């Protein structure tokens, strides 16, 4: 173990070259995979499923159609937070910077007319080299009313409404 190692100037240089080549290969492969694989596909759920109801709510919200988004809330939530109150909540909540984000479906619990969807929100927060990706879980309750699935909690996008907008 203590015998003198052979002079290895060449091997030192070679190992640095291997490291550099490996990193470049990894970068090229990753970029190729991401670009060739294309966008992640939006999941397709049954038309009358709670997932679809939530998907449509989010699509309406993202398009700025708050009236359509508000219609996806349960009667109880709509009673507590009418369309004007919802508009005020969105205005107050959405005034800041909104990061790039995606919502991933994780799992579903509950049964019958009450379910809870377990989602993961991916957000890229920050700008340039200071940016980073954050993931956080969100659980959303839905109820079936008149054969349609409705969101049973006051939300702005997927976040709890910041205050009781009825007051």
């Amino acid at each position, binding site marked *: 173990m203590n*015998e003198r190692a052979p002079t*290895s100037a060449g091997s030192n240089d070679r190992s640095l070259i291997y490291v550099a080549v490996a990193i470049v290969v990894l970068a090229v492969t*990753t970029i190729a995979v991401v670009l060739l694989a294309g966008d992640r596909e939006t999941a397709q759920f049954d038309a009358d499923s709670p997932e679809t109801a939530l998907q449509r709510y989010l699509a309406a919200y993202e398009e700025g159609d708050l009236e359509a988004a508000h219609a996806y809330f349960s009667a109880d939530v709509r009673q507590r937070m009418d369309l004007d109150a919802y508009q005020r909540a969105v205005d107050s909540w959405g005034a800041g910077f909104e990061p*790039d984000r995606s919502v*991933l*479906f994780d799992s579903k619990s509950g049964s019958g007319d009450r379910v809870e969807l377990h989602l993961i929100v991916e*957000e*890229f927060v920050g700008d340039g080299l200071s*940016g980073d990706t954050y993931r956080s879980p969100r659980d959303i309750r839905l109820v079936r009313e008149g054969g349609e699935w409705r969101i049973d909690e006051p939300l702005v996008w997927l976040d709890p409404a910041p205050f009781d907008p009825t007051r």
Partner: protein
Amino acid sequence: MQTARRLYVYLLSGISLGALVLGVTMLLTVLLEALGLGPAGEGVVVGGEDVVRQQLTLASAVTAVSLPVWLIHWFVAERSVRPDRPGASVERTSDVRGLYFALAMGGLLLAMASGLASTVEAIVLELAGTDRFGRSIGGGLALAIVAGAAWAYHVRLRTRDWSRGPMTDASAWLPRTYLYVAMFAGLFILLGGITGFIELLGRLVLDEPPPFIDESSGSWWAYPLASSVTSVAVGGAVWLGHAAYANRLLSDPGWRGASERPAKVRLAFFVAVLVAAAAGTTYLLGDGAGNAFAAALGVPDSDVAGQTFGLIILPILSAVPYAIAWWIHVRWMDQEAATAGSSENVETADRLQLYPVGLVGLAFGATATAWLIAILIDVALGGERLVAGDAWRRELSQFVPFAVLGVAAWIWQWGRASSRWAVDPIGEASSTTRWTTLLIILAVSIGAGVISLGFILYRLFGSVFGLTMSGDPISELSLPIGVAIVAAIVALYHAGQLRRDQSLRAGIETAPAEPATVPSQAWLRLTGPPGADIASALSALRQHLPTGYGLEAVEPLERPAGTPHPTSEAAESS
């Protein structure tokens, strides 16, 4: 000049390496998640590739910037230690390079362990069919792979550095510190995982899920299981890997072994393990005993109703791994001291086992006793703090076991130390370990006493000067009084020990002042051919000694029959 150059090269290498590991980890994360190791497998509800492309952009930029910077600086650092370069040996054994390796290997190990832990946890939660809360297997795995590869690369380079020749001072002990800090952290993460398993198994057997978990979920055990598996796997791998490496160094017959065996960092590691394991054992035993005592006193606990047995038995069982770790390290310490073949090593190892553990016992015992005095004052004088309900019983049951266990541990260790002192007072009084222990105790007890007296006097002067003081005076003063009393007793006793030791040491330290009256001596051996008349030779030699010199035989000599005993012939030539 050279030190400044080294600082620059290694600082830039370290910073760019950190950025490179970050960038490559992000790249690999994107790749692995694109291949199906992302946080959720059932598709995107809304949103597209923006997040992924943002991450890819950031990863590419960080990697593209940091890779050339690291390559250039690390090439310079490595070129300077090539054996064919002038001053390569100085460079290889420089303190800055030693510091760089210690920090780089420590940081990379931490990142690798963190990535591995995240991966194992996500896999266990996936297998248990439980919500992973956004944990990504790909992200953890990428960090483990990239940081692990960088760590392995540095370990290989460090091993190569050692193979080129011995290293001393900071270039040796700084990376050695990394080794033993990693061993310590790995061991206690492992112990935490084992106690987690014990608690989980106990709760499953006793059917006592933790009170803060929704029992209806049916899989409350998934998170404790994932946490325990992770701790055991990661902590165990880190501890075993580093311990095996350290043991290999110890048994190395060359300079690496010679450098490692007497290393003080290794001794410090043993002491740290003994202290932490003794503290863990005492705490867990005290916790279980406290719950038993609380049950005996009839203290109700609404949070954990009906879980009394589990609350008693599980902490006590959890203490067992800590006690085993304590015992094993005592044995290893003893074996290494005995193998060293020096009685001084054995003595040092013995003291390093006694005094630090005694300190732990004293810390538990003194703290809990101070609380017990405070409870006594509150109860006797009607302090508001303990008036309501079962508050005093709850506190009493909490602190009595710690007082008993702590004082017992202190008596056990201090009794052994006193026995050593009785056998060899001067040797023990001269011991640095004993001296340091006494000074630590004195410093802490005086500090605690001064602070508590400050509280007492503040309250007293406030009353004298007519200030409106908040809180009940008895309850506000009971703990400071308890601390002051205990601190005074502890300080007085140990100050007495310190004075006694000092007076003994003073006796030794004045000894060198006597050479004017004690003659200088040197031991000589006189040999001759078989049958030689040693006594005659001695006698002849004495004739040639200068004035004031003497020569005497102090061992029985084989002498010719009829020759008088040589010691009787001892004489000074004049």
